[in-house]
């Protein structure tokens, strides 16, 4: 068979699509193969119930890099991000905190609990923005390899050293603290009111198998602060039409650049001859050949399933097996007859337009984590709720609403084993709804449909190993030059001409697009495709 493609990309998740678009932009002939019937991977919009469109998995956007939006002209291809400005935190004692309406009201709101914290909050945001700027150049380029003495690599290290040197001791120290401290400890250095600390700390645990008191969670906090829309820091948004519209915009951009995308084309394995990737074999037996193969699947799936242990050195296999991918979160998608009315702030209002965080205390969050540590879902979980239909009415029938509830913790490894999830799925959904009912009485009676996604479902339906939404935990030993394996953090793999382009590589998960873009640029600079 003659060679047809310059590159075949396995998986039409957002990173695979970004990678494909950049390669095509450089004139390469690219084919993207997707197992499911739609593109997007974990960034999809699905009409789970007639008339109700859900961002079934990933539900907000913050980290998508502005450069990618510009380079791929995503706005032209239909990307429209609606701002998600307010953050509403209801507490079990009947009080609430509503931030983000405007600076003056945020200040008033925080003063309800602590005048001092209200003064400190703007300074904190500035400090976080500064820290993000320090990290940004490191996030935006491939991870330098501390174990390599190549001149280009030493130069990279020197460049990063210079960034740190110019920043000065104080900023670097602050950064080191962020890398090593717990979110709760770090925030307690700034703030005194638990009503503020708890919901802020909660953003440090999203997608991790850690608690707010676990060292290392302060860093994740920063990761979430790095979100930017059109260059403005700390702005979250809801893509109009759901997160699937991001994937659709990237796919449209890719197609316009000549990329061929095939859905319902599951790949069985990567075709390897003499240690070199030659193409892929589909489930239906078809062989497709290409000069390079790029995997958009997670590291476990890529190496243990698509490549196979026999093609790899035992040491590398051990490293991949030790790459931790414990899923810890679930998702509850609800179709509602009416908006919820919170006991602490009844009726509709700005507080329902933004994100609603149920994180009423440090101990509450920590107990939620304790349940998960010993193999159970949180009886009283942490939740991040959005009601996209409030700002984007097209996603629900007139007068009705969709509610997306991100829930933590839901450990993949239940003490009875992951396969016990189907029998616990609804109990998990009940635990979620019970907490919301407590905060918003009458909520349960407004539910028209309920769709519960456990980590087990995320694995089975969306191909996320162990249900890990970031393709591998974002712990320090799994970042930068160690993501996903030492020596293989620059999108290359031990199999020649096989590349990785998804969240299992530097700089990691979230709808960022950076792994896909960096993979494409590495491939192009090395003439690989």
């Amino acid at each position, binding site marked *: 068979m003659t060679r047809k493609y310059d590159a075949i990309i396995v998986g039409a998740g957002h990173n695979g699509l970004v990678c494909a678009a950049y390669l095509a932009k450089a004139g390469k002939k690219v084919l993207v193969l997707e197992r499911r019937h739609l593109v997007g991977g974990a960034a999809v919009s699905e009409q789970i119930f007639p008339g109700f469109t859900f961002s079934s998995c990933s539900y907000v956007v913050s980290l998508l890099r502005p450069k990618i939006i510009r380079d791929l002209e995503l706005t032209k291809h239909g990307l429209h991000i609606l701002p998600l400005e307010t953050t509403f935190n209801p507490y079990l004692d009947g009080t609430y905190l509503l931030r983000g309406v405007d600076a003056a009201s945020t200040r008033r709101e925080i003063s309800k609990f602590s005048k001092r914290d209200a003064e400190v909050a703007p300074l904190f945001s500035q400090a976080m923005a500064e820290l993000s700027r320090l990290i940004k150049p490191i996030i935006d380029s491939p991870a330098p390899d501390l174990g390599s003495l190549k001149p280009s690599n030493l130069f990279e290290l020197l460049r990063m050293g210079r960034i740190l040197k110019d920043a000065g001791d104080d900023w670097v120290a602050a950064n*080191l603290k962020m890398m090593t401290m717990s979110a709760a400890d770090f925030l307690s250095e700034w703030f005194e009111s638990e009503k503020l600390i708890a919901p802020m700390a909660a953003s440090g645990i999203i997608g991790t198998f850690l608690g707010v008191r676990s060292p*290392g969670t302060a860093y994740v906090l920063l990761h979430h602060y790095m979100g930017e829309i059109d260059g403005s820091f700390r702005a979250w948004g809801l893509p109009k039409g759901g997160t699937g519209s991001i994937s659709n915009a990237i796919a449209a951009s890719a197609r316009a650049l000549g990329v061929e995308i095939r859905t319902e084309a599951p790949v069985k394995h990567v075709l390897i001859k003499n240690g070199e990737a030659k193409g892929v074999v589909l489930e239906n037996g078809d062989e497709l050949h290409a000069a390079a193969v790029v995997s958009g699947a997670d590291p476990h799936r890529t190496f243990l399933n698509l490549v196979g242990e026999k093609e790899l050195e035992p*040491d590398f296999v051990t490293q991949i097996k030790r790459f931790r991918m414990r899923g810890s979160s679930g998702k509850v998608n609800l179709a509602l007859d009416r908006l919820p009315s919170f006991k602490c702030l009844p009726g509709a209002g700005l507080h329902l337009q933004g994100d609603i965080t149920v994180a009423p205390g440090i101990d509450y969050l920590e107990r939620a984590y304790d349940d998960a540590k010993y193999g159970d879902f949180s009886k009283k979980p942490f939740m991040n709720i959005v009601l996209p239909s409030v700002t984007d009415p097209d996603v629900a029938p007139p007068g009705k609403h969709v509610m997306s509830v991100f829930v933590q913790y839901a450990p993949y490894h239940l003490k009875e084993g992951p396969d016990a999830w189907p029998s616990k799925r609804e109990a998990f959904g009940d635990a979620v709804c019970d907490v919301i009912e407590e905060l918003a009485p009458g909520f349960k009676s407004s539910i028209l449909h309920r769709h519960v996604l456990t980590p087990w479902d995320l694995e089975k339906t969306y191909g996320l190993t162990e249900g890990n939404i970031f393709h591998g935990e974002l712990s320090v*030993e799994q970042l930068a030059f160690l993501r996903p394996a030492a020596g293989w953090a620059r999108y290359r793999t031990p199999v020649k001409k096989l590349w990785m382009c998804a969240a299992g590589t530097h700089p990691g998960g979230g709808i960022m697009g950076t792994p896909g873009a960096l993979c494409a640029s590495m491939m192009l600079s090395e003439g690989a495709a």
Partner: protein
Amino acid sequence: MSSFDALIIGAGHNGLAAAITLQKRGRRVLVLEARSVAGGLCAAREFHPGFTAPGVLHDTFEVRAPLLDALGLAQHGLSLRDADVPVHAPTSKDKGFILAHDPERSQLGEDQAGYAELCRVADAARGALSTALDAAPPPMIPGQVSDFFDFAKLGLSLRALGAKDLYGFLRMLPMCIADLTRDHFKNETVMAALAGATLLDEYVGPWSAGTAARWLLQRAVSGKEVAGGPAALVRALKASLESAGGSVRTGARVAALLVEKGQVVGVKLEGGEALRAGLVGVAIAPRALLPLLPPHALPLNVFDELSRVRARGTSAKVHLALEAPIETRGGRHERLRMGDSLDDLERAFDAIKYRQLSRAPALDVRQPTVADLSLAPRDKAVASIWVNFAPYDVDGGWSDDRRKAVLDAVLARIERYDAGIRQKVIAAEVLDPKTLEAEYGAPNGNVHHAEMSLDQLLFMRPTLRLAHYRTPVEGLFLCGSGSHPGGGVRLAPGWLGARAALEGWAS
């Protein structure tokens, strides 16, 4: 008014090490100790008539042989034991395990090979780590050519590991000990025994990131122990200091530091006596410095950093006077770690997050009488036990009932491995974190003076601006466990602090 060249506040092991270092360089030194005896947490403690614990801190495997020489301790009766003392991890079913520094001397059943491999990678970096722990902390960002040179040297010594081990080592650094041990071991008791080494007075459980580094750093400086334990070490330190001409004054609690024009000039004792000296070393907890200084003596940013140093006491100490030593199915051992599994340790940690006592605490036990019969009456025994965890700010406060609850939990744990323990107990004392604070000045009961978390190590210990021992007040320097390389019985903070002070403030 008496006059000295240097005063050291606190006659713990680090204070004494600092004093000797200065005295040997010709300074006239007086060490001021608030308690009635020198030695601090290393001093012998007769907790029941005839029964003595050789120090509240009970391990000495972290003292470094070159330092013992530099401080002249061998001439003053100090001797090292032939080898490290292995740790016995008992189980309720069989003879349990032996965890020695040397994998060859360990008895770990099916985990023997896993431990050997783990130690191989850890020890490959031993040179680089122990270098970092024997010297003043490296600068965070290399600024001068000489710093670059030091960095390059460190880099090269790490490079010597070879790429594979280097990666293995770098990956270990930020990990939690639970993940690390699960990568290498199969048996939960073995995992718990190794993880148990990282818990003392930290606010972490085995699932907390950074605990692997704690083990690595501990292993890098581990060596032979001092014969006679910490008490023998401080006896030798005191003798060495006195033979060099220095002295220790007990019952002398410092009430204030005297500062004139940005320079320390002495101290005022409780009772009003003033002592003058151009150098003052602080071997007590770094934060305890703040109330001793006059207002505005430190720049605001230094003050701010110092007031944020985390030191939460999380461990209690129990001393048992026993009719006979604790004896498990594996026999009598000098060191034992008790905790059945990683989850068992983690549950013990969970309790303190909610200010509760651990129902089933993890224990780090030493039976000093196995090696030293002089510590108890004939045929009797002493057990020295660190209990993890018991929080300083326990819900409801510390009381006799709480201390009794700690003792009960400890005996219940030991009972799993030695059914007769309760009949052996002659007397017991419980030192809760509040008591450790009141008696030994350990801040919040934390015997390391500042938690040894990753953000409070190296050039961040105790804070960024105070990591090089000298404070912004000329003549005033840190020389206690709150400084690099930190807590445990190490001596290096005292020695390095004094050397930094000798370099002067001009630069």
